[in-house]
Structure formats: C-alpha cells, structure tokens
C-alpha cells in the first residue's frame, strides 16, 4: 500500500466523516477555551503533573465516563442495526468494527479505569495512608492508560478500527484475513494500557500490605480494600499473560512471525488459550472491586456491620484462585474431548459456590438492619437479583454439553452482560454516588439519581433478557443481520428499546452531575451517609494529606466505633506531613508512549525508535533525579483543619441523607 493510503479509513462512511469533524471541533473548542480562560497553567500544575491519588482517581473517573459514552454509542448502533430484520443501517464491515470496539472500550477502557478510579480514591483512605506507595508510578499508570485509550480511539478516524471482535481470535485477526491496521491498534493500545494496569496492581498491593494504619491487621481491613487487594493479586498473575499474547500477536502482524498462523507450525488455538488465561481472571478483576463497593454500601445503608466478614474474605480468595483454573470454558467446543471439558466444567461451576456465599452474606447484612433506600443502595438492591440471574446462567453455560448449544449465541451475550452490567456497572454507579461527597464535598441529587436507576434497570431487563430467548432460538452473536423468517425480529426490537432506556439513564446520570454542581448544597459535612469505615473519618472533600493525624484502628469499622463506641481514632499531636512532589514526567511519558504506539501501528520505524529512546531517557532522568518530596508544616495543616471544622459546625443540625422519608 502507498504510504499515505494506510492512514485513510478503509471503509469510510458519513458517520466517520462526521466524527472526524466533531473530533476536530471539540479539540479546537477545548484548546481555545483553555487559552481564553487562561487555564493552561492550572491544568498543568493541578492535573497533568499531579501524583495525588485522589486527583488521579478523579481523572480515571472522568476517562471512564467518557469511554462509557463512546462504548455506549457503539452499543446503540449495534442494537439499532439489529432492531429490525434485514436492516441496512450498518454494513457488515462497519458492524464488525463497532462490536469489536464496543467490547474493548467497555472492558479495557471503561470498566478498568472505573475500578482503578475507586481503588485510587478509596483504598489509601480506607487504610489511613497518605497516598499510595509509589505516587509517581501511579501517575505513570494513569498516563499509560490514557495513552492507550487515546490510541485506541483514534483508530476510528485514522487507519480503521479493529474488526475481529474483542477476543480477536487468530487467524481471523492475522494479516491474512485482517489487512487494515485495525488489529495493530488492538494489540498495541491494549498493551500500553495493560502495562499501566500491571503497575497499578503492584502499587496497590504494596500500598495495602505495607501502609495500613496502626492497628489495622489484614482481617480488619474494610471489604473494599480486601476486594481491591485480591483484584490486584489477580492482575499480577493475569496481565503478564496478556502482555506476552499481545506481543506475539504484534510480531505476527508486524514481523510476519508464525505464532498464531496456520502454516509453518503456528497455532491459532494458542491465542485463544492465552487470551482466556488472561480473560477469565480479567472478569474477576472487574467484579471483585465491584463486590467490595456493594459490601460497603449495603452495610452502610442497612446500618449494620457486614455479615460473615471472614467468609466474605475467604470466598474472594477462593474465587481468585479458581478464576485461573477455568479458562477452557470459553471454548468447550474446541474439541478437547469429554474429560477435559468435564474437569473445566466442574471447576467453573465451583466458582458459583463462593459467589453464592457472598450473595447470601449481603442478604444477611440487611437482615435486622435498618434499610435506607438511597441511590447507592438502590443499585445494590437491584444488583442482587439481577446478578444472581447472570450467575445462574453462568452455571448453565458451565455445563459443557449444553454449552455446545449456548456457545457463540445471544444467550452467552446475555449472560455476560447480565453479570457485567448489574455487577460492575451498577457498582460503579453506586460508588460514584456514594463517594461523590468524599471527592467533591457535595451530594448528587437523589431524585434524578433514582430516575437514572429505574431507567437503567428496566432498560437493562428489556435489553438483555430477550437475548436469552433469541439465543436459544439460534441467533448467533456478532451477526450483522438476520432474515425475517428467523423470527428474531420482535425480541430484538424490544432489546433496542431497552438499549434506548439505558442510554437515557446514562444521560440522566451525567445530567445529575451538572445539575448537582449547580444546585446541591455545599458543606454536607464529613459524614453525610452515616457511614462506617475509615475513609469517612476525614473531611469532605479530602484534604491533600488525607488525615491530619494518623488514625489508630481497632476494627474493620473504625469510624463507626469512633462514632458509637467512643473509640479514639486520632491520638497525639499534629505533626509535619511528608508529601511527594508533583512531576510532569509521567504525562510526558504518556505522550511519548502514544507516539511510540502510533508509530508501531503504522510500522513507522524511525519515530518508533526515537520515541522508544525517549521513553528510556525519561527513565534515566528519573533514576538521576533526587526528589525527597516536601513537608506540609503544622501551621498549614491546622489552618486547613480549622476551615473544615467551622464548616462542620454549621451543618451538625442537618440530618443525614436518605432517612426514613425516602
């Protein structure tokens, strides 16, 4: 191909041209806006160079929401195309690109940053730490994620999107059947953000194991911290497998090696195996932190301690172990014979047992509680039945002989959306609402939030339950169209309506953010939800040093103990606090990684090598840098604290949110 031809989108259509224009316009608007309001300096000083775990968490959060909309638009296009038989809205190539990017964007660039957002925001607070163990590395992780996400998203307008599904099975994803650079984007963008994820894993494990407040033994950690910890352990073991698989996929595509080809000894099934050795643990990386958020929310709004703390922890450990022993269930139909299938069938079903334990523990946490139906609680309450349905259909899929009929059908699609949406997405929205005051010091509007919840739940049921039926009726996944005679039409139309309701729900949720920024009362105080764990023992929004004095902890509900049983959390005098310095290097590294990735996608070797050298130069720079951080003086801390305390007095009379009246 001609040099410049490669950059053109292979299958352009009006939607793509429109997006190109939109992207240019929005970028210009942002640049002009920043210049006009003279915010470049602010942006650079406060955000691009930050190493503060809270700000990094917020940036993850914003990215996740943006990606949610990108993936959501994809989803709407898919459902619209399938809403009627023989629909001509999208052509097959376009449809293939849309479902491929939908899957990757949602899993890698929406769900992952969402959970990292909460890990960053909450874990250090829950364990009473000043920051994560390696703040600078944390910033690098974020900017690598951002570089990967940007790279992946420009594939849409430069060179073409990946079109081999989010699973990207070879040989379909090889150069023989997928000629455009789309799959190069897949391999390299995921690689870059995957390295970021791995480093976050290392960072969080070190933070959680080494930086807990005095008195907080492992079995006194709040549940979200436990969940994040287990998720990070899975990351450490799972992501290197992905790294290697992507590396091999990249060399196959760029250097014509024979890992996954069908000639010269290549083996296409090797990709499928590696992909799922990472892929199955990956779904648990997503769901465990979600479980953690539900544990926090349910116990707070039931006004009770979490039931069965030990079995909650135990079940997560078992789930994490088992998650590595089940990957074959994604291809029972690959012909490995009855014995192998039986083994993996049983190991898969076994996961349902610890998952069930968790469900019952949440139910028992509500037992004898005093349940307040706030928005976070609504999501948690909706989660329990809906996720149970997703889980039991998982068990059905795990029956390998029957899976020969479910595999690759809409039944499977219904299953995993049924686990990921009520499981992960609901949790993220619950967490968003629950921790919003923690981040910003004001609440999201409850009324709009509840509307959002109902639209989302009903939309979800309408969108995905019909798929169980069409799946059993023979509708394969990833078909861009079907004929009238199949009879899939009506149910797919219902699904389209459901998708529309979900879209409205997400718009409501974002509208709620803008609405609340304008109208919500400030000064909600430090404990608007009558919460229980340590992250609520500091102010809202959290000052940069988190806790003025190091907390001393005696249980997993340290804050509750302090409120109800007079436990003394903060002892001693305020001392100077050591904080890390901000740095622009992580951001610059992200930019260079982006350039590097882009060069690799298009096999532009000179910029690729130059940018690789740039990355190493950044690392050398870091090695020689002597940066011992800075100290916040006692006076400064006292000044900050007294500001919060006077605010606190104003609102003590205001009752806590979500009381009996709601």
């Amino acid at each position, binding site marked *: 191909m001609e040099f410049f031809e490669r950059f053109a989108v292979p299958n352009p259509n009006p939607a793509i041209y429109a997006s190109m224009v939109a992207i240019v316009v929005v970028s210009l608007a942002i640049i002009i806006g920043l210049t006009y309001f003279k915010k470049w300096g602010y942006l650079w000083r406060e955000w691009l160079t930050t190493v503060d775990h809270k700000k990094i968490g917020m940036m993850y959060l914003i990215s996740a929401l943006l990606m949610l909309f990108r993936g959501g638009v994809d989803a709407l296009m898919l459902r619209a195309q399938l809403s009627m038989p023989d629909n001509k809205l999208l052509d097959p190539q376009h449809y293939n690109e849309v479902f491929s990017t939908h899957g990757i964007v949602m899993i890698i660039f929406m769900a992952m940053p969402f959970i990292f957002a909460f890990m960053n925001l909450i874990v250090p607070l829950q364990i009473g730490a000043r920051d994560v163990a390696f703040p600078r590395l944390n910033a690098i992780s974020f900017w690598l994620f951002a570089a990967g996400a940007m790279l992946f998203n420009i594939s849409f307008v430069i060179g073409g999107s990946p079109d081999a599904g989010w699973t990207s099975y070879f040989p379909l994803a090889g150069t023989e059947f997928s000629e455009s650079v789309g799959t190069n984007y897949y391999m390299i963008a995921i690689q870059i953000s995957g390295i970021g994820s791995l480093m976050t894993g290392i960072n969080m494990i*070190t933070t959680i194991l080494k930086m807990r407040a005095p008195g907080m033994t492992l079995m006194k950690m709040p549940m979200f911290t436990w969940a994040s910890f287990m998720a990070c352990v899975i990351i*450490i*073991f799972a992501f290197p497998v992905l790294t290697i698989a992507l590396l091999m996929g990249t060399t196959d595509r760029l250097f014509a090696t024979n890992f996954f080809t069908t000639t010269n*000894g290549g083996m296409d099934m090797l990709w499928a195996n590696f992909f799922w050795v990472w892929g199955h643990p990956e779904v648990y990386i997503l769901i465990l932190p979600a479980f953690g958020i539900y544990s926090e929310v349910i116990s707070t709004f039931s006004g009770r301690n979490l039931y069965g703390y030990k079995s909650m922890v135990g079940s997560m450990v078992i789930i994490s172990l088992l998650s590595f022993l089940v990957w074959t269930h994604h291809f029972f139909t690959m012909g490995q014979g009855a014995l192998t299938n039986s083994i993996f069938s049983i190991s898969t079903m076994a996961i349902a047992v610890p998952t069930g334990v968790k469900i019952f523990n949440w139910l028992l946490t509500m037992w004898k509680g005093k349940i307040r139906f706030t928005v976070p609680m609504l999501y948690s309450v909706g989660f329990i039945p809906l996720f149970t349905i997703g889980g039991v259909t998982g068990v059905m899929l795990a029956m390998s002989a029957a899976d020969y009929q479910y595999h690759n059908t809409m039944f499977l699609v219904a299953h995993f959306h049924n686990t990921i949406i009520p499981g992960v997405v609901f949790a993220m929205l619950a967490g968003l609402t629950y921790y919003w005051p923690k981040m910003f010091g004001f609440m999201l509007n409850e009324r709009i939030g509840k509307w959002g919840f109902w639209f989302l739940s009903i939309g979800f049921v309408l969108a995905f339950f019909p798929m169980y039926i069409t799946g059993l009726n023979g509708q394969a996944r990833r078909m861009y169209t079907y004929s009238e005679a199949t009879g899939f039409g009506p149910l797919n139309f219902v699904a389209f309506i459901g998708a529309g309701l979900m879209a409205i729900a997400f718009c409501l949720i974002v509208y709620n953010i803008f609405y609340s920024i304008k109208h919500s009362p400030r000064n909600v105080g430090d404990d608007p939800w009558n919460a229980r764990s340590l992250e609520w023992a500091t102010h809202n929004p959290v000052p940069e040093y988190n806790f003025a004095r190091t907390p001393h902890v005696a249980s997993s509900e340290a804050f509750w103990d302090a409120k109800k049983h007079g436990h003394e959390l903060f002892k001693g005098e305020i001392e100077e606090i050591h904080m890390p310095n901000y740095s622009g290097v992580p951001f610059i590294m992200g930019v260079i990684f982006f350039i590097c990735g882009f060069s690799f996608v298009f096999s532009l070797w000179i910029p690729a090598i130059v940018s690789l050298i740039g990355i190493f130069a950044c690392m*050398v720079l870091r090695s020689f840098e002597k940066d011992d951080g800075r100290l916040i003086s006692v006076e400064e801390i006292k000044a900050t604290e007294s500001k919060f305390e006077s605010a606190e007095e104003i609102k003590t009379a205001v009752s806590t949110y979500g009381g009996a009246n709601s």
Partner: protein
Amino acid sequence: MKIDHTQPLEYSTQQNQLNIFGFWIFLGAEIMLFATLFTAYFIMENRTGNGPTGPEIFEIGPVLFETFILLTSSFTIGLAVHAMRIGRKKAMLAFLGVTLLLGVAFLSAEINEFVHYYHVGATYQTSGFTAALLTTLGTHGGHVTLGFFWGVCILIQVMKDGINARTANKSFIFSLYWHFLDVVWIFIFSFIYLKGLM
C-alpha cells in the same frame, strides 16, 4: 526522610522498604511473564514447519559460555552488595563494573548466537518454533540489556554520591533484578538448550 539506623542502609527509610517490597511483587509478575513464554515455547517446540528443529541449530559451546558468564556475574553482583553493606565504595564499584562487563559479554555472545541461527535458516519468521525460541531468548536478552543501562546509571550515581540510603536501595534492587535474570537463564539453559540437545 527519616533514616532508621537499625536497618541495613538499603532498608533504612520507609520509602526504601516500599521500593524493595514493590520490586518483589514486580518480580512476581516477571515470573508469570517468563512462565507464559516457557509455556509457549513448550507448545511450539515441535512445531517447526519447514524450518530446522532445536537439536539441529543449538550449539552447546556458546551456550555454556553464556551460562558461565551470567552465573559469574550473579556472583559478582552479590559481592558488590556485600561491599556496599560494609561500606567499601571502591570495591563495590569494581564489582558492579565487572558485573556490567560480564553482562556485555553475555549479550555479545547472545547476539552471535542469533546471527548463527540466522545463517542456519532459523530466522524469526521461519516457524512457530523459531518465533517462540527467539522471543523467549530475546525477552531475556532485552531484560539484560535494560539491566545493563540501569546498572550504568547506578554506577554513576554511586560514584558521584557514594553509598547512601538512596544509592544503596537502588543497588540492592538492581541486584535482585540481576539475580532474577540469572535464575531465568538457568531455566532457559535447562529446559530449552539441554532438553533440546538431549
């Protein structure tokens, strides 16, 4: 930075302890990385397509040389850390320097080996087997290369600043990395070369 004098220098601040602990976790991830590569290699071992097989291209001489060099360098980096602990800057620098030189020797031997493979028709593109072999060796070699440059940075810093909590911590972590690469090499030696030659 608070320095705790009851600990060895490399552990003496809280950040130092975190660095070392975090690095151990990183090595855990590296173990998974190489385990995946080994798995791929074992699967691909006999999938040679039209290309040569392992026994046809492996040569024991250079491999023994590389093994010997890398093992020795593991020993010298150990000595460097020992010298660091007892505060002998010159000795430490010398051993660190020797380690890095051995690293270079290893790398040149490995490059030679790759050239040899190229000449006997086992290129990166030849077959599933050669792709897996060269990726596994190359990933290890890449780590050694990276380690070399990292080591040079540390060498310069120790030269300039002497042995203090910062440089001691870096040197110690570097030594962990170097030992790890050595262990990986032992696996490569046993399960790729010896197994292939037998």
